[in-house]
């Protein structure tokens, strides 16, 4: 029988906080924490005190007062008697619109350019290198301003479309007008539309659009089921039944039927008064911003894609080639899926960059959240601190959401290790 006795408990001495390695790190961390918090507290206190001395207390009440200014591009109903909060929301939607359009376009261009940069065709590869180096090495603001200047200076103004022998005409069978105020394209209209769905009484969502999307999702789901069934038949019998015509019909027919039911027709733009009326007006500010942001970010994405592809060993290509796959299938089926694991993490930061760079919109007069909340509202109310804080919060939330979504995607694409 043995008796284990604990070593005599060392009594805690204050000096151990510094000399004992077990506690030392904690000591310093706590000191650092206190220092940082004190600093933050001092800064906040200083700001509040200074504002108080100026007689400008922090107050968000201005958000509920009428904005008084107009915004040209509105995704929801808005007029100058609405509140600053709603104006900010209109701006936020504009930010999101250009960010989503930009991210999608940048990804498509970036992937194509990245792959082409590795092309064995000397000319294509060099052209892509020139593109990447040009866009990557010039500040995006220049590209935005340049795109806008080109659109304004090179396209005809609406008044050139007037007269018996106009200097400019509408393109594509008289349906699309390219002007230096933007592009007017035909808009979808529904003569038997089912109206709008009011969300919290704040804005309406077109039920027609919702119905079309629901039908489309349903159709695609059915088409996919047909595909799965074909897979199963192929597994069992070795013969794959021809399904593409059924799948096409399943996707196309219900939507066409729904469109006919809703009385779908196109509204064409026409010159009336000073401007084209009717149709959807894509303003030059949106086009310039979208184009410049996409092309700029695509240059970075192309480099990420190239890095991702180069990270896959050449043996993979050779093995796939040995199996008899053609080079575009090798890229699509073997290389890109593996390269994605390397591409996605830096891609997330490119999306974040694009979204944040969209705050340069005011350079071309695009009314995003920076232009409305942190631009006109700030100016008309003089609430610098409040509007800038709100604006920062908005960008933070958007960025965190993008990171969150992309991280989920990254988790799914990651190499699953057993």
């Amino acid at each position, binding site marked *: 029988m043995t008796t284990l006795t604990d070593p005599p408990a060392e009594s805690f001495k204050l000096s151990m906080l510094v000399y004992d390695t077990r506690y030392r790190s904690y000591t310093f961390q706590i000191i650092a924490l206190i220092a940082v918090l004190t*600093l933050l507290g001092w*800064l906040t206190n*200083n700001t509040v005190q*200074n504002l108080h001395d*100026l*007689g*400008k207390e922090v107050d968000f009440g201005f958000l509920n007062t009428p904005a*008084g*200014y*107009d*915004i*040209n591009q509105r995704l929801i109903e808005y*007029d*100058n*008697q609405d509140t600053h909060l709603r104006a900010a929301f209109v701006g936020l939607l504009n930010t999101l619109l250009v960010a989503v359009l930009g991210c999608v376009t940048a990804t498509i261009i970036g992937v194509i350019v990245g792959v082409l940069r590795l092309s064995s065709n000397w000319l294509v590869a060099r052209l892509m290198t020139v593109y990447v180096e040009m866009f990557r090495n010039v500040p995006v603001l220049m590209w935005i301003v340049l795109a806008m*200047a080109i659109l*304004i*200076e090179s396209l005809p*103004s*609406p*008044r*050139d479309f007037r007269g018996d022998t106009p200097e400019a005409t509408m393109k594509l069978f008289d349906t699309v007008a390219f002007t*230096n*105020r933007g592009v007017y394209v035909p808009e979808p209209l529904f003569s038997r539309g089912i109206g709008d769905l009011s969300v919290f009484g704040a804005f309406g969502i077109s039920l027609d659009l919702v119905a079309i999307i629901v039908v489309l999702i349903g159709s695609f789901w059915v088409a996919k089921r047909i595909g799965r069934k074909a897979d199963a038949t192929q597994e069992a019998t070795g013969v794959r039944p021809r399904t593409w015509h059924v799948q096409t019909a399943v996707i196309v027919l219900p939507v066409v039927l729904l469109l006919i039911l809703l009385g779908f027709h196109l509204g064409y733009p026409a010159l*009336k*008064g*000073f*401007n084209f*009326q009717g149709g959807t007006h894509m303003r*030059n*500010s949106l086009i310039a911003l979208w184009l410049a942001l996409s092309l700029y970010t695509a240059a970075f994405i192309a480099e990420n894609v190239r890095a991702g592809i180069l990270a896959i060993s050449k043996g993979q290509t050779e093995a796939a080639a040995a199996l008899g796959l053609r080079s575009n299938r090798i890229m699509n089926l073997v290389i890109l899926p593996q390269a994605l694991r390397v591409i996605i993490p830096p891609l997330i930061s490119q999306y974040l960059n694009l979204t944040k760079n969209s705050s340069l919109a*005011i*350079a071309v*007069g695009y*009314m995003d959240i920076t*232009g409305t909340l942190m*631009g*006109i509202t*700030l*100016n*008309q*109310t*003089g609430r*610098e601190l409040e509007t800038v804080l709100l604006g920062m919060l908005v960008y933070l939330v958007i960025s965190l959401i993008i990171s969150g979504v992309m991280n989920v995607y990254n988790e799914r694409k990651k190499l699953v290790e057993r």
Partner: protein
Amino acid sequence: MKKSVFLGALTVAGLAAGVAGAATVDDVKAAGKLNCGVTTGLVGFAAPDANGEWEGFDVGVCRAVAAAVLGDPTAVEFVPTTGKTRFTALASGEIDLLARNTTWTFSRDVDLKFTFVGVNYYDGQGFMVPKELGVSSAKELDGATVCIQTGTTTELNLADFFRVNNISYEPVPIETNAEAQQQFLAGACDVYTTDASGLAATRATFENPGDYAVLPEIISKEPLGPLVRHGDDEWGDIARWTLNALIAAEEYGVTSANVEELAAAPTDNPEINRLLGTEGELGAMLGLEADWAVKAIKAGGNYGELFEKNIGENTPIGLARGLNALYTDGGLLYVPPFR
């Protein structure tokens, strides 16, 4: 290392904040120069000339204040500000005086905590259109695309005007006068709206000014004047009375040509004597030298001279005195007595 840089920056920021709290006039004297906010470039009001020297009507106010306080009209650091950045620049102490055709409004004076020291130009918002559009009244502008400088009172006036007249428009917000000019000339907007004086100044720089017309409607009151921060009345008084001195000088016939002569010895007119410091202690009351007004007037001339030289009828901008004539000539300029 990084932390120490950060702390250093904080200390500097703290010191700067401390300095800004002191009397502005002492800061200006200590720095030896006046930080004056002006436009990013509006010919006639404030724009650099071919040699990079700022000149113009608003610039004249900056130079007069610098001359009155520091004795040197060139001791001015011009800070170009946009409609959006001007108030932040003034509130944060980056500039000591904002002379940037800024409209005196209730909320800017009361809510934004600024003090307008007077009016140096009585203006109103107008519209400019190309003559080929054949528009003769602003009420015919239904559906027009309007270029407008963002962050200005004109933006709100415009919204009000179109709402009251129940016509629609498409605003194209732009940051600076130069951008507006580019878009307007390319036909990307039908109309350019801003203060009528600004329209005249902008039109003067066009290749063919005759192809553009300013519509007759003036849709707002725009009293433009220099302003300072709330809470430093001594500095506000200096700016206010320097501006008043320029206007009073015109009233009493004191010009940059004869001011030396008139200030050499007391004249028969006690009002001129008090203004020029040969009688009384007005300069000392302001905390300035006795000949502060002499220096201010010498800097660019009296109000009338500044007007004629920069924006008057003999300049490309060609503005008539109109409301900006002395009260004795049927205008609105009327300064309190110097006594």
